[in-house]
């Protein structure tokens, strides 16, 4: 395959903001000598460099693929609008950072889908790369376009654009796909290779979804009647893949160290996958089950290797609920000991509120002080029971007492508005909760509290996600959410509380896309064609473009977002099996409506279905 690297002139790079994002050359980035049998994989993140480089899936897969002598994985990110404009003017195709090779020359172009509002960016990157956007328009000369990440658990709105998807944890699946590709193209892609035979064989690999091999039939009421494989050789259900043992998997001993600052500019250790808590709104908490932990020895060794190979002076702990890591005390003791004298600090995110974890925070911030963040998610106990978030007001106030004594002068509190069964009362209770914290603060002797109280309250708009107990639930209407936001805004006036709230516009479209079906593909493409990209950026998001395109194709946002779905309704993603069963999810939904909680996995098994993977804490690991 002939590859001409793109030419980035000084003039081009001088004309754009933060040019370091576009030139590569970072420490631990990988280059390899070209040969005809080298499989070339472009790992794409459909947002800017600073966000994409903070994604740990990118770092893990980049490392794994480049460990293979037969594969070279490179990276590409969405160029910011100024760069995009110049690339289009000068006919520069989207390229990889490592070798500046146009993406159209790659064997594989892989996108990680972390949020639905990146869909228009995927289409824009394919267009910039000169790769046909539609699967049906691609030929043997085009790369295979593959998706992964949590949003691939309902890929339907993007089904027209991806040749295949990796469902679940990709570490093993991606290697099997590359092996299969090697069999088909031992000396690189030719113009006569049998792409469709490859896709059919790929579909037989567990965890691989090839959307074009399934036909979707709709009922007169627009709901799905059936999702049918094209013939008997195509599996009717695609079960996600997991890595069973996190201690024996290959884990990176090096990370790409960016030359320019990124969002999470540190090394991070993955404590465990999955989450035992079972919060009913949380998609990650369902789709990554069962919980599998990494051992202290493995993490400590990895930390030492990463510290040496990256030069980072900050280490983060990564998981869905850090304080649920069973050996958190011994891990943090070990890490603090091995970091001591190196000026390397430990940062602890997503902690639950108890004295043990606050003590840890103080240890962690012995060299650097970080802010406290709590996520009660809802204002009343009733509503917290609905969402199965097992935090009480008592927990919060005790934690704040300790925090004030420990020298923190406040905290960030995260809530959601528009949760199922939420009333105006529940929203008001958010403000009452901050009042209680204020009263608590004023009640402490001056010697036991810092000088000025500072609280931050953020409310997001609740978005029902697929593969969660709330996949049947309607999203709250914009006018109701808006009313509650305005109420809180008024209520926090002249209080020591900073209030941030997220506009409902983009949350509405996120709700549309999250539970969307294949008919939305045409809508997404139409929105993109109007020049809309970076939907996840509030100042780029335009609701009207979405509503107009929906109307053009005879679709209604409320059908997807505001309709309560029937128990028996076939969901557009029902052929994707994340292990957790629909029966369990529906049971949970019914319990939610009655404000009944479900114990977490470590206390009692609630028969969610994840035991099917025969690993993790379900089997007492």
């Amino acid at each position, binding site marked *: 395959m002939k590859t001409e690297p793109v030419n980035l002139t*000084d*003039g081009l790079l001088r004309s754009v903001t933060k*040019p*370091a994002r576009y*030139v590569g*050359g970072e*420490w631990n980035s990988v280059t390899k000598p070209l040969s005809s049998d080298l499989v070339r994989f472009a790992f794409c993140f459909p947002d800017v460099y600073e966000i994409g480089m903070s994604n740990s899936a990118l770092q893990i897969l980049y490392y794994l693929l480049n460990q293979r002598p037969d594969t070279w994985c490179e990276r590409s990110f969405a160029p910011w609008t100024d760069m995009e404009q110049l690339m289009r003017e000068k006919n520069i195709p989207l390229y990889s950072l490592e070798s500046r090779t146009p993406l159209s020359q790659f064997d594989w172009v892989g996108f990680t889908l972390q949020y639905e509002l990146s869909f228009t960016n995927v289409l824009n990157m394919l267009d910039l790369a000169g790769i046909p956007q539609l699967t049906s328009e691609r030929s043997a000369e085009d790369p295979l376009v593959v998706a992964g990440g949590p949003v691939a658990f309902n890929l339907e709105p993007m089904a027209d654009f991806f040749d295949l998807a990796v469902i679940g944890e990709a570490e093993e699946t991606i290697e099997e796909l590359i092996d299969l590709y090697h069999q088909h193209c031992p000396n690189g892609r030719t113009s006569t290779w049998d792409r469709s035979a490859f896709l059919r064989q790929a579909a037989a690999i567990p965890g691989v979804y090839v959307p074009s091999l399934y036909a979707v039939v709709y009922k007169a009421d627009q709901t799905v009647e059936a999702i049918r494989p094209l013939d008997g050789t195509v599996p009717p259900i695609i079960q996600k893949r997991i890595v069973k043992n996190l201690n024996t998997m290959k884990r990176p001993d090096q990370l790409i160290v960016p*030359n320019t600052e990124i969002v999470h500019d540190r090394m991070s250790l993955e404590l465990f996958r999955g989450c035992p808590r079972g919060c009913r709104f949380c998609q990650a908490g369902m789709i990554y089950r069962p919980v599998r932990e990494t051992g202290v020895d493995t993490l400590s060794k990895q930390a030492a290797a990463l510290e040496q190979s990256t*030069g*980072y002076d900050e280490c983060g702990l990564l998981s869905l609920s850090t304080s649920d890591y069973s050996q958190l005390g011994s891990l943090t003791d070990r890490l603090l000991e091995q970091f001591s004298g190196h000026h390397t600090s430990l940062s602890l995110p997503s902690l639950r509120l108890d004295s043990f974890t606050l003590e840890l925070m103080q240890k962690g911030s012995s060299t650097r002080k970080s802010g406290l963040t709590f996520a009660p998610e809802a204002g009343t106990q009733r509503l917290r029971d609905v969402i199965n978030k097992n935090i009480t007001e008592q927990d919060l106030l005790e934690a704040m007492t300790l925090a004030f004594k420990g020298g923190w002068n406040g905290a960030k509190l995260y809530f959601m508005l528009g949760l199922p069964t939420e009333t105006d009362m529940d929203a008001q209770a958010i403000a009452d909760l901050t009042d209680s914290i204020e009263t608590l603060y004023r009640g402490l002797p001056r010697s036991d509290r810092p000088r000025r109280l500072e609280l931050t309250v953020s409310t997001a708009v609740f978005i029902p996600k697929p593969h969660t107990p709330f996949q049947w639930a309607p999203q709250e209407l914009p006018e109701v959410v808006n009313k509650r936001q305005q109420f809180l805004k008024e209520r926090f006036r002249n209080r020591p509380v900073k209030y941030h709230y997220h506009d409902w516009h983009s949350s509405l479209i996120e709700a549309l896309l999250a539970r969307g079906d294949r008919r939305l593909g045409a809508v997404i493409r139409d929105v993109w064609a109007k020049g809309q990209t970076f939907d996840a950026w509030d100042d780029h998001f335009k609701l009207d473009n979405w509503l107009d395109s929906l109307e053009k194709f005879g679709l209604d946002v409320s059908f997807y977002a505001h309709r309560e779905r029937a128990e028996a309704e076939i969901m557009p993603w029902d052929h994707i099996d994340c292990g957790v069963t629909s029966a369990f999810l529906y049971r949970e939904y019914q319990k939610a409506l009655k404000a009944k909680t479900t114990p977490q996995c470590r206390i009692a098994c609630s028969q969610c279905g994840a035991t099917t993977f025969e690993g993790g804490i379900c089997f007492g690991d």
Partner: protein
Amino acid sequence: MVTNWRIRYSRKGPAVWLAHLDQMRTFERSIRRAGIPVAYSGGFNPRPQLAFALPIGVGIATEDDYVDVKIDDQQNYEPDVNELWCRELNRSLPEGLEVQASRLVTDDKKNSLMSRVTAARYRLSSLELAKKVDRFQTRFNEDTWMVEKQTREKRSLQDIKPLILDIQTEGKHLVELLVCAGSQKNLRPELFLQLLKMHQFLSEEDMLETSITRTELLFAPQHMKVADTNIRDWVSGLDV
């Protein structure tokens, strides 16, 4: 007594596009990877103590820049460690950054690199730039060279003529500029190109495409006050 490890470095390739803070962070991490016993500042957020002689703008290459790395004298290291550190750091720097020379010096606040920088030489190159500059010098007979200077807050006009110490052209394309540099008087070479553009000696596109390399940093001798009148007398052959 505090020891400084003084590095003379160059940058080219992708590293040219680092902003000053990016480059500082990149050096910090590289120094940590190389295992050099750098001293840290105190306080809540201790940082490795690095002092760059002169920040360098985004998009400018350099063949002659300096940074002082403060060494933690509490830690054990051999007196002849310079070559080893130099080798280790070069193994730890990302593409485009390279240590050219280094030595251990005693820290003397009054004579920090930063306070002694006085002038800098730049090589500018683009299609027929030398010819355009020659034409500019023969035809443009103003006493002041006013350029619009854009800072984050406001625009202002600045006379850059007094800040330019020498202009040499070489062949058709190369121009060498000697300008004031440092904390008191400093000229970014882009402003000279801006002046050419303002008076239609250079197109906007050619201005942006002009490659800029800092070829030499010039320092006032130790214990000498920096005064602009005598810069021309000592700008050659100084030992840093």
